[in-house]
């Protein structure tokens, strides 16, 4: 073989190896967490290992639409993950345990299924034992019907109820444990012993509910609600979020077909502006529903994502769809 021929063959062979090898090499050496809509697989991988105190560098990319990344029960800035771009995130965990990371963008009907876990190993202060949720210690069946037999004619007003409540002799009404364990209707019933009119009693309930929260808690609840709940339940709580129609369709078709988890039974999201439902639900009950999620419906489980405080803030915000807090909700 001529030397020039040999040279040309070597050149072409090297070119082929470089063209094929370079992308393969770098692709194999660049671990990236891919985000896809839950219908197409969600996070991949969805289990990440980490160690206490050691910074965890994550490189995230989206394969379809804009997603978001956040870790539950952890102070961190939520980041956006854009299609085809890579976002770097560094996390440091100071306690061992299993953390949940989740999508923060309403990417699709099954957005809330986009979750994964970070298994943080190592020694450190033992994770604090989880307190028994109030609904458990109260023995509440959070799947039971909780309709209020009576509803107010006009929206109850805290301003009107404030003075009336102050005049009431019994003081345990404003007690936090009492508030959390009772539904507005139950308190309305207790107030029957007073000589207030029905409207006045509802106003008192409203002011009691407001006295058990703060404007900061309501603002925090509102923000959490807008980010995490409004997609289904609607910005104004009416159960008409952007996904509501699709959820209903998916729910109906899954009830007809009884196909697997992907189409699992979904229902129309609860309407928080409906007084029959809301005034019959105690804060502890709503807390339980948020914490655990509604098995068999599209309601996700938030216990691994929200802190206890965040859930209580959300609960107090939910009642603002019933009660007139007079500008307290910003």
């Amino acid at each position, binding site marked *: 073989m001529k030397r020039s*021929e040999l040279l040309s063959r070597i050149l072409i062979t090297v070119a082929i190896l470089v*063209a094929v090898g370079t992308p393969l090499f770098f692709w194999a050496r660049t671990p990236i967490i891919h985000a896809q809509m839950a219908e197409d697989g969600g996070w991949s991988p969805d289990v990440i290992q980490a160690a206490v105190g050691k910074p965890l560098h994550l490189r995230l990319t989206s394969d*379809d639409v804009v997603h978001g990344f956040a870790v539950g029960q952890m102070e961190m800035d939520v980041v956006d993950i854009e299609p085809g771009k890579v976002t770097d995130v560094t996390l440091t965990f100071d306690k061992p345990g299993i953390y949940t990371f989740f999508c923060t963008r309403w990417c699709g009907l099954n957005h809330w299924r986009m979750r994964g876990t970070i298994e943080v190993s190592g020694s450190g202060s033992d994770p604090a034992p989880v307190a028994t949720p109030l609904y458990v210690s109260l023995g509440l069946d959070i799947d039971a019907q909780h309709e209020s037999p009576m509803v107010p004619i006009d929206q109850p007003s805290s301003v009107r109820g404030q003075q009336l409540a102050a005049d009431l002799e019994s003081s345990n009404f404003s007690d936090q444990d009492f508030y959390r364990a009772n539904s507005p209707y139950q308190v309305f019933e207790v107030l029957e012993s007073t000589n207030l009119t029905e409207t006045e009693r509802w106003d008192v309930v409203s002011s009691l509910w407001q006295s058990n929260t703060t404007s900061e808690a309501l603002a925090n609840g509102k923000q959490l609600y807008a980010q995490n709940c409004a997609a289904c339940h609607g910005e104004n709580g009416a159960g008409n979020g952007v996904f509501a129609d699709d959820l209903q369709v998916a729910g109906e078709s899954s009830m007809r077909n009884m196909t697997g988890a992907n189409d699992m039974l979904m229902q129309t999201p609860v309407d928080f502006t409906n007084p029959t439902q809301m005034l019959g639900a105690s804060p502890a009950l709503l807390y339980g529903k948020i914490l655990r999620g509604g098995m068999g419906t599209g309601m996700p489980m938030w216990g691994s994502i929200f802190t206890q405080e965040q859930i209580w803030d959300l609960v107090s915000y939910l009642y603002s769809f019933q009660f007139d807090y007079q500008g307290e909700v910003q």
Partner: protein
Amino acid sequence: MGRVELTRFPIIKSAVKNRWPQLAVFIVTLVGYLFAILAGLVGTPVGSRNFSIVFVWIAWWAILILVAVPFFGRGWCAVCPIPLPGEWLQRGAILAPPDKKPKWLNLRWPRALRNIWLQNISFLLLALFSSVLLTTPNITGIVLAAMLFAAIGLSAVFERRAFCRYLCPVGGFIGLYSQTAPIELRIKDKKVCVKCEGKPCYNGSSTSPTAPLSANTGYGCPWDVFPGGLTKNTYCGLCMECIRTCPYDNIAINLRPFSADLAKPSARMDEAFKAFIMLGSAMIYAGVLLGPWGVLKDVAYNVGTGAWLIYAMVFLAIIFIIMPSLFALCISRFGNLNAFKKRFATLSTALIPLGLMFWVAFSLSFVLANASYILASLSDPLGLGWNLLGTAKAAWQPMLTSILAPGQTLALVGGLVWSARTAQKASTEAQVSSVPVIAYSLLATLVMLWLLL
């Protein structure tokens, strides 16, 4: 109609005769091609961020349809890397012919398929899936790889570049439109060819023992064309092999007026239908991909659904039935019916420049709209978060929006004028009036103007 022989200039001549310059370009395009396949397969599935989509369907397409085809005809075929591996296998060498030829089947291509109908079909196959192909890196990677392997496989079974000549989905229309290009490969003096024994330009040097001893050793035309008989660019791949092989230095690359080949139209049905396929698909694409009808986009994208099947049927009906029948209706009122087929094919020549300019106008809009992806994609070709050139974060920004509409109008109106002039020549050949053909072109141009603007 003057012609300027480019190979008269020593620098051009030696660049063409020497195998190394072309090989160097081949290596670059081969690396790009393989990289595009790999990027498609392992890179980000997001098309606008993947080298395979951005470089093949935006950068390469822009260069091909806006520069290479209009100005260099089959210029792309001259540097396309697809035949390279197969040809190495087939010839047993990369440079000059080896002493011992490898024993492959070397079959002649079946006579019944010696036309561009397979290319018409392969183009349409891709065209029907284009919405998915053009946006999905995986699919693009697979199609590119399939073409490479098909070319290698065919090289082992058939002689010469069977893939390029008869199967390549792109080669068909490049050939058709290359007739309009101001560049050609032709012999200098017919008498020299007549006397030449062995015709090494077609048969290869090794089979020509009578050829005068010279440094000119090479292969027979890979495109299965006898250069001595070339009258149009359609099937000359500009591979330059005959220039290297000709013992009499009788082959030249010429600069010539645009659309010189169309003055004497050839009358083949496969080429006539290629003209309709290209004209029709430019119009359908303009409507489906650029038009305001979201439903159409969805239907074209959802390959395999019932709606897509209807879309495919309508696509094929427009190209194979509606547009040709309308054309036939236009021309059938004149002259006798006996030579109708010949007249149909001859007059369809007028649609060649029209179709080319339709594609230029159509491509301008999506190329200018998406060219800014090239910067980001160069910097992060696989979507792995690299920033090789510091331009990975370059934002998407449509370019030259102010000249888009005027540019498209100019291309379409220019295409109509060009087509009308071609129609006049073709109708002289067919001895009929050119008015119906010009009316047909006018109608098509108006539809295209409406679709694009």
